[in-house]
C-alpha cells in the first residue's frame, strides 16, 4: 500500500467530519478529567490564606518583583565576592608555595631546566591559577543558586521578565533558559528545547551567551574586586565589587533583550507566541541534595573542565614564552603584534592573546593573561594577593580603570566557549547558526569595547 493513499484517505475522512471534531474530543477529554478529579479530590478544610500565595503576591508583583530579584542577586554576589577573596588568597599561597618547592626540588636533583620550566612554570602554574581563582567563588555561588532553584524561585523570575521578552519578540520561557545560562551556557542552550517555536528557540540559543556563566563569574568577580573596588574606601570594597558584578550582569541581560529584539525584527521575524507557565509551590530545599548538586555536579564539574584546558594552556604559554627570537620571545612578539587592536578596544595585546589561547574554555582567561604577562617577561612573580595583582598589572603593565571595565565587558560579551559552540551546532544541526552565534557575540564585544574606549578617551578619562 502506498503511504500517499493513506494520507489522501485521511484527508477525505477529515473533510467529511463536521468541522471542529477535534475540539469536541479535546473538550470531552478535559471535561472527563474534570469530572474524575472532582470525584477523587476532597478539600477537607478551606484554608483561610495560603502562605505561598502571599509570598507570590510580593515576589511576582510588577512593583516589588524586579527590585526583589535584584536584591537577591546582589546578596548572592556579595556573599560570593566577600567570601571568595579571603579563601582565594589562602589557596593561592599554598599552591604557589608547593610550586616553588617543586621547582627547587627539580633543580636540586639536576633535572634539565626546560622540563622543570615546562612542568612547574607551565602546566602546574596554569592549574594552580585556575583552582585558586575559580574554586572559592564557585563553592559559594553554586550552593546559593541551587538553593533558589530548589526553592522554586526560578519560574518566578521567568514570570517577572515575561513581558520584556514578549516586547523583544521572544518566548517568555527564554527567561528560564537564560537563568540556566548563569549556570552554564551550554546547558542553557540545551534547555531551549522547552521552547516550541523554532524561531523563538533560535533567538534563545543565539542570545544565551550574553549572560555570564559560572565559569566567567570568577573572572568578573576578580576584576571587580581588584580594580573597581580599589577606587572605593576599604569599608565599601565588597559592596562596590558586588555592585559592579550586578551591573555587568544587568548589561548582559540588557544585551539579551536588545539582541533578541534585533533578531526578531530582522532575520528571525515573527510574533511572540503565547504559553502557559506554571508557578510551582515553594518547596523546602533539601540541604544534602543542594550540597551534592552544587558541589559535585556543578563546582567539581566546572573546575575539572577548567583544569583540563588550563594545563595545556599553561604548557602553550610556557613554550611561546621560551621560543626566543632575537632578544624577544614568541609570546611577546604575538602580543606586540596584537597590541594595536587591543589598544583600540581599550585592552592590550596580551589580553587578546590570552583570549585566543583560552578559546577552549574562556573561564581560564584571567590565569592565562597573568601567565602571558609573566611569560612575556612583563611580570616577574606570580602574585598571590589581590593587592599583588593590582600592583603588577597597574604599576608594571599600565592598566587603567578603562582596561578593567572593558575587560569585564569583553568577558561578558565575547564568543561562547568551544563546548557551547559545539552544543549550538548539535542543537541547531547547522554550521551556519553556530557561526552566527560566534559572530554576533564577538561582533558585539568588539563594537561595545571600541565604543567605550573611544568615548573614555574622548572625554579624557583614559
Amino acid at each position, binding site marked *: *500500500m502506498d*503511504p*500517499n*493513499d*493513506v*494520507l489522501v*484517505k*485521511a484527508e477525505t*475522512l*477529515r473533510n*467529511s*467530519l*463536521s468541522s471542529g*471534531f*477535534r475540539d*469536541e*474530543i479535546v473538550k*470531552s*477529554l*478535559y471535561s*472527563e*478529567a*474534570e469530572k*474524575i*478529579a*472532582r*470525584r*477523587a*479530590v*476532597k*478539600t*477537607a*478544610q*478551606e*484554608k483561610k490564606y495560603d502562605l505561598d500565595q502571599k509570598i507570590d503576591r510580593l515576589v511576582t508583583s510588577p512593583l516589588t518583583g524586579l527590585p526583589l530579584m535584584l536584591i537577591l542577586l546582589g546578596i548572592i554576589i556579595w556573599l560570593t565576592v566577600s567570601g571568595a577573596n579571603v579563601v582565594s588568597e589562602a589557596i593561592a599561597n599554598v599552591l604557589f608555595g608547593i610550586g616553588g618547592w617543586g621547582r627547587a626540588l627539580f633543580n636540586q636533583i639536576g633535572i634539565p631546566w626546560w622540563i622543570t620550566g615546562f612542568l612547574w612554570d607551565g602546566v602546574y602554574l596554569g592549574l594552580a591559577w585556575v583552582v585558586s581563582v575559580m574554586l572559592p567563588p564557585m563553592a559559594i555561588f553554586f550552593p546559593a543558586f*541551587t538553593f533558589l*532553584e*530548589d526553592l*522554586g524561585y*526560578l*519560574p518566578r523570575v521567568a514570570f517577572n521578565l515575561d513581558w520584556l521578552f514578549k516586547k523583544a519578540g521572544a518566548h517568555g*520561557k527564554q527567561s*528560564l533558559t537564560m537563568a540556566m545560562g548563569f549556570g552554564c551556557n551550554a546547558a542553557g542552550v*540545551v*534547555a531551549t*528545547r*522547552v*521552547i*516550541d517555536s523554532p524561531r523563538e528557540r533560535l533567538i534563545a540559543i543565539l542570545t544565551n551567551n550574553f549572560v555570564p556563566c559560572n565559569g566567567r563569574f570568577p573572572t568578573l568577580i576578580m576584576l571587580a574586586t581588584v580594580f573597581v573596588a580599589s577606587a572605593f574606601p576599604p569599608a565599601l570594597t565588597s559592596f562596590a565589587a558586588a555592585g559592579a558584578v550586578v551591573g555587568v550582569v544587568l548589561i548582559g541581560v540588557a544585551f539579551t533583550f536588545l539582541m533578541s529584539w534585533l533578531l526578531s525584527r530582522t532575520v528571525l521575524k515573527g510574533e511572540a507566541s503565547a504559553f*502557559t*507557565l*506554571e508557578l*510551582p*509551590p*515553594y*518547596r523546602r530545599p*533539601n540541604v544534602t*541534595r543542594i550540597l551534592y*548538586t552544587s558541589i559535585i*555536579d556543578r563546582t567539581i564539574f566546572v573546575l575539572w573542565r577548567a583544569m583540563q584546558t588550563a594545563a595545556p594552556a599553561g604548557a602553550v604559554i610556557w613554550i611561546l614564552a621560551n621560543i626566543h627570537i632575537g632578544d624577544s620571545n614568541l609570546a611577546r612578539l604575538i602580543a606586540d603584534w596584537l597590541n594595536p587592536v587591543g589598544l583600540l578596544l581599550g585592552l592590550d595585546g596580551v589580553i587578546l592573546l590570552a583570549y585566543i589561547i583560552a578559546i577552549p574554555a574562556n573561564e581560564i582567561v584571567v590565569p592565562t593573561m597573568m601567565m602571558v604577562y609573566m611569560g612575556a617577561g612583563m611580570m616577574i612573580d606570580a602574585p598571590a594577593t589581590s593587592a599583588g595583582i593590582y600592583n603588577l598589572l597597574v604599576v608594571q603593565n599600565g592598566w587603567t580603570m578603562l582596561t578593567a571595565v572593558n575587560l569585564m565587558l569583553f568577558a561578558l560579551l565575547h564568543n561562547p566557549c568551544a563546548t557551547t559552540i559545539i552544543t549550538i551546532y548539535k542543537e541547531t544541526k547547522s554550521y551556519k547558526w553556530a557561526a552566527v552565534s560566534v559572530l554576533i557575540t564577538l561582533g558585539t564585544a568588539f563594537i561595545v569595547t571600541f565604543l567605550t574606549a573611544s568615548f573614555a578617551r574622548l572625554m579624557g578619562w583614559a
Partner: protein
Amino acid sequence: MTKTNTKITLPTENCETCPAFYTLEQMGFKIGNFDRVVALAGNPNTGKSTLFNALTGLKQHTGNWPGKTVTRAEGGYQFNGVRYKLVDLPGTYSLLSASQDEEVARDFILFGQPDCTIVVTDATALERNLNLVMQVMEITDRVVVALNLMDEARRKGLEVDARSLSRDLGVPAVPISARTGEGIHTLLATVADVINGDIKTKPLRVEGTPEFQKAVRELVPMIEQLAPGVPNARWLAIRLLDGDAKVQQALLSGELAQRVARQKQADVQFSRKMSVEGRQ
C-alpha cells in the same frame, strides 16, 4: 554428613503481600541487561526525576522548575529479582503539540513500547495532570498513575481518593511521596502486577462522535497494512485525522515501518534471551 540442616522458611502467601518482603535494589547505570522497561511520564515539575533518583540511586539533577528534564535519562532498579530499565521522560502537559520535549516523550511511549508507563501526577493539581494521563492512555494500556506529592496535598488540606481515581480511569492509581519514599514499594508491586497481567487495565478512552469512530475504523486497517505490527494503529489514525504533520511525515518516509521493524527485532532478541535465561 556433618552439615547441619537449617530449615529455610519460604515466604507464605500472606508474607508476600507484606511490603517488607519485597526487595528493591538500586542499580544506577548498570542497565546492560534488563528484563523490563518502565517509562516515567508526567507533567513538568511533578517529581519524576525525584522518583527516578529514589528508584535508581542515581543523582539526576532535580530542581523546582518546570522543563528541567529535556532529554531522557535512563537508569535501572531491581525489584523482586526482576531487573527494570527505568526511562525518565521530559515533563510535558500534552503529547499533541510538537515541541522537542513532547516529541521525545511521545515517541518513547509509542515506539519504545515500554512494558509499563508510570504517569507521575501532582496530587495537588490533579485535574490538570489527568489530561496527560488520558493522553498517555490513548497510546498504551499498561499505565500506572503515581499520585505524587501526597504530603504536600495533605498539607494543603486535600484528600485524594486513589480508589475512586483507579476505578474511573481504569488503571491503578498509587499514592506516593517520592521525596520521603512513602508508597514506593506499593507502586513497584503494582507496576510488576500490570506487566505480569495480574492487574488487568481497562483505560478510559474518549470515543468521540460516531462519525469520528467510523473514520478511525476505516483508517486503522490501512495503517496496519502499511506498517505491519504497528503498536497502536488507532492512535496513529486519530493523529492522521487531526492532520499531525509529524505522523504524516513518519508514514511517508517509511520511518514508521522501520521503527516497527526495529522494535520487532529487539522483541525477538529479547524473547530469545528470556528463553535462554529461563525467565517467563
